[in-house]
């Protein structure tokens, strides 16, 4: 499975997790565009917000989320992290070690407008 396909699958997994109201790329588009315009943009088609980076024999899976205020944010973080861990453990294209980084960018008191 390509990293783009894997990212799309992991993004869908995170988006569906209890307590997650939004999923954001770990690297904002503008920031990415300032570096490697075409490549980065091409690597992030719609629906693939989970970043997968491979360097020095380590794969790093990064994502940022909005967490629902209705649930404690640490519980949501652990849930998402463990979901990603199970998914990456089962993914043959991701050889260990795999580092997973999940960050809450905001705690949502309202659902997204759409």
């Amino acid at each position: 499975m390509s990293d783009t396909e894997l990212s799309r699958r992991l993004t869908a997994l995170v988006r569906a997790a209890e307590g997650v109201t939004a999923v954001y790329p770990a690297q904002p588009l503008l920031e990415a565009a300032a570096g490697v315009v075409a490549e980065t943009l091409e690597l992030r088609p719609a629906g693939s917000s989970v970043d997968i980076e491979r360097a020095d024999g380590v794969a790093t899976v990064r994502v940022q989320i909005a967490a629902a205020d209705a649930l404690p944010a640490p519980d949501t973080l652990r849930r998402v992290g463990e979901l990603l861990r199970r998914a990456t453990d089962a993914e043959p294209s991701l050889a260990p070690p795999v580092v997973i980084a999940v960050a809450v960018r905001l705690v949502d008191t309202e659902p997204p407008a759409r």
Partner: protein
Amino acid sequence: MNPDHSAPDPELDGHTLAELGEYLDRGRTPYDPSIENSPGCRLALANLTRLAGLSGGLLTRQAEREPDRDALWIAGLLEIIRAEIASGRDVPVAHPDPALRLTLTEAAVRGLVRQAGDTLGGVVMGRCVLDGDVGEPGAVIRLDLSCAVAYGLPIAPTVDWLRERVRAELARHTELVIGAIDVAVDDVYPRGGAADV
């Protein structure tokens, strides 16, 4: 301090605070995915929404009496909102798997504090500083807050209530160890402003 709210801000994914204000004025229509899908914009929108309710009420009551004072105060709050959407430091959440790095951004934590204060009724949050090593699990953190309180509210009990609310909110959503919560009440505003937000 940069008072130029028309300058594109990287934390707002290229949008400006002024654009977000206009978007709010339009009732967040037409839907703009570049705003709604940006965590920085969402944080700023939440803060601006509460401030918009306050400023509308205040400015209509006090514009003729103290226009310069109110304009400066609102501008100061806008500047704080703009400064506080920067992601800042990582605030860790523990997990037994050392290769699982779970964090809240400092901006998300400040958003929790601001939300707790602004929705208290009779309080408008100003400065919110997390003083201490937020990245070190177990380190005691001091909060340095400022706020305005509605005229007529007893200040000491209101501040106690604010502290209690902030402490509860951070206990629920973070693993920070909160020590002192220092609150400076730096303004008093007429009732019907923030209390209606």
